[in-house]
């Protein structure tokens, strides 16, 4: 699949060549343990700290506020359970209806009272038809019993951004810890965490051209913290376990590259995304964008093609080496379309035919033109096969049944 047109960067990204090169020595000659006293091991610690500095630079925070983890999910789990441990008297958790499973399933487990804890009260803040966060509902949900608020910064399916500054400010007023899952936002939009009322923030390496198996958690100085992984003194006793040096070095290098590419993300990548999206909307009737268009990540486009099914579209795109994803039921392995699209109230006619394109700086405008040439005929073909493709057909006239 060397010739693949890869438009699924919100799922995972290619390891950047510079990143691969940077991590290689730590998979070969420099295999020492950073905690060792001898020079052979100890020299490696300098590289871990350098990576910490590189990531802190991208996030706009102090290096000591960065804890390396194994993935975004670990960061999310650490942040939320830490807040609960530190506020044992509070029994209320607030999140949103559109979180990634890493947060959503943890919160729902807490609400069931698993893991030896009594059940927490859980509020999932709704979103509107554009995927926008319901600030009024959030204001009403906040109370003195709230132990933690966890709201994603950017939605992985639609790219819609949440007002984390406003959410954090309300939390700060009440002394409630605020965590944001920012695995999709980091590296795509500029951020200066030292200026923001965010207490904890999750990062995932493989979403920004580092390899899988490394993540980070930002913990603002002064935030009460309780580790998830108990063990050695690594990461200033905030995360036990020998440092995954090669992956950490990779994440540091990827953060440095991401910072250098932030401008490109918001000009070149945005232009490619807009070209693709506008081209599809113009060429294909019955297409609609899911999520507020002017409040999104620059790389993400979630488009629904009415009266066709997403998995069928993806497999036909796959024949042309084009990689994307879908919120349709058939692709998720469940029988219902994505929880994000359902939370937005996207009609089923459109939710089943939703396709997500997520770009990176490694895409080209030429690739967008290829997709624009290939996809509209696929939609036409599937609509020809579909009983609902023509509005005068008996099945379409009968309309969707409840």
């Amino acid at each position, binding site marked *: 699949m060397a010739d693949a047109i890869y438009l699924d960067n919100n799922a995972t990204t290619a390891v950047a060549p510079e990143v691969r090169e940077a991590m290689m020595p730590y998979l070969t000659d420099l295999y020492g343990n950073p905690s060792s006293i001898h020079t052979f091991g100890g020299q490696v610690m300098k590289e871990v700290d350098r990576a910490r500095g590189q990531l802190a630079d991208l996030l706009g925070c102090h290096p000591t506020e960065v804890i390396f983890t194994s993935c975004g999910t670990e960061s999310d789990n650490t942040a939320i359970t830490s807040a609960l441990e530190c506020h044992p008297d509070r029994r209320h958790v607030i999140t949103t209806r559109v979180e990634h499973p890493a947060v959503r399933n943890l919160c729902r487990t807490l609400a069931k009272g698993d893991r030896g804890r009594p059940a927490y009260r859980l509020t999932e803040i709704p979103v509107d038809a554009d995927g926008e966060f319901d600030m009024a509902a959030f204001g009403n949900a906040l109370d003195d019993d709230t132990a933690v608020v966890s709201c994603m910064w950017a939605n992985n399916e639609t790219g819609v951004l949440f007002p984390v500054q406003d959410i954090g400010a309300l939390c700060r007023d009440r002394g409630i810890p605020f965590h944001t899952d920012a695995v999709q936002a980091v590296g795509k939009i500029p951020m200066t965490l030292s200026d923001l009322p965010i207490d904890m923030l999750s990062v995932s390496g493989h979403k920004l051209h580092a390899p899988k198996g490394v993540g980070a958690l930002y913990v603002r100085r002064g935030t009460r913290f309780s580790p998830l992984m108990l063990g050695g003194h690594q990461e200033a006793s905030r995360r036990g376990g020998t440092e995954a040096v090669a992956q950490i070095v990779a994440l540091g290098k990827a953060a440095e590259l991401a910072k250098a590419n932030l401008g490109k993300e918001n000009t070149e990548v945005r232009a490619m995304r807009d070209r693709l999206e506008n081209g599809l909307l113009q060429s294909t009737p019955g297409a609609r964008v899911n999520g507020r268009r002017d409040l999104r990540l620059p790389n993400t486009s979630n488009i629904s093609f009415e009266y066709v099914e997403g998995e*069928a579209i993806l497999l036909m795109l796959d024949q042309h080496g084009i990689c994307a994803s879908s919120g349709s039921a058939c692709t998720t392995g469940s029988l219902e379309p994505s929880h994000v699209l359902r939370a937005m109230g996207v009609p089923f006619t459109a939710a089943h035919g939703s396709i997500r394109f997520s770009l990176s700086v490694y895409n080209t405008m030429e690739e967008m033109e290829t997709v624009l040439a290939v996809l509209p005929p696929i939609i036409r073909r599937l609509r020809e*096969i579909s009983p609902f493709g023509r509005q005068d057909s008996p*099945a379409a006239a009968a309309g969707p049944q409840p």
Partner: protein
Amino acid sequence: MWDYTDKVKDHFLQPRHAGEVADPDLDATVGNLTCGDALRLTARLDADGRIADARFQTFGCASAIASSDALVDLIVGKTLQEAEAITNDDIAEYLGGLPEAKMHCSVMGMEALQKAIARYRHEPFELEDEGTVVCTCFGVTDKLIEKVVRDQNLHSVDQVTHFTKAGGGCRGCHREIEKIIEKVHGPRPEHAAKTRDRRRPMTNLARMRRVEEVIEQDIRPMLQADGGDIELVDVDGRSVQVALRGHCAWCRVKDFTLKATIEDRLRELVDPQIVVQDVGGRLPDEALGPRGEHG
């Protein structure tokens, strides 16, 4: 990514029978947009009452489109009586198999055919017209669930969901589906075991049947929950030969599963002297050994 056979991919990418027949004698639509798949089947009969031409229109995933195309391949040239006998298994088999979670696509094909024939004969379509809707998310009736549970020998709600989609939405109907399973197969083995008369010795035949029942109803769903599966290869007296599949086949605690889960369960529910052996690494024929040993 679904693991589709080449035949499924071929019928999906190059369907032979997409479209609609003009002035059809048979015409039926099952499924709907909300559910995520729908199939309209139209067909024309010749003077002898055979299906001369048939076409499908399908909204759905690759396996739904492939199943529809396979259905038409299977029915053209047949009388309605012959066509009626076609089951969803025939469709799945024609395609070289479907992933279990996609079996409902083949059931949709069977439903469309039966509905079209019923409409043609002006008879009620039992699976849709006469049943009560159990799963409101996907509009599945008790009649359809009961038919599939019986025909496919299904024993868990998950299996029913794979074949009919029922129970795959809000999950509010799971208890109802369990009741239908119990209605078809009788109560779950835990209850049945308590009522078994332990004083009378078990015949070989009874033991074999019981082993099969416990594996199907009790052990298989448990293994499947962890991504594994089990196949009953042979029962010889009190020796039970099984093959562990899926995750179980490679699992590091396979031996533990075999002894602590499968053997214990069979000893508890069937016969305290049962010994279980895993013959999964070999083909069933080799596993059986020379015929003489079993005489």
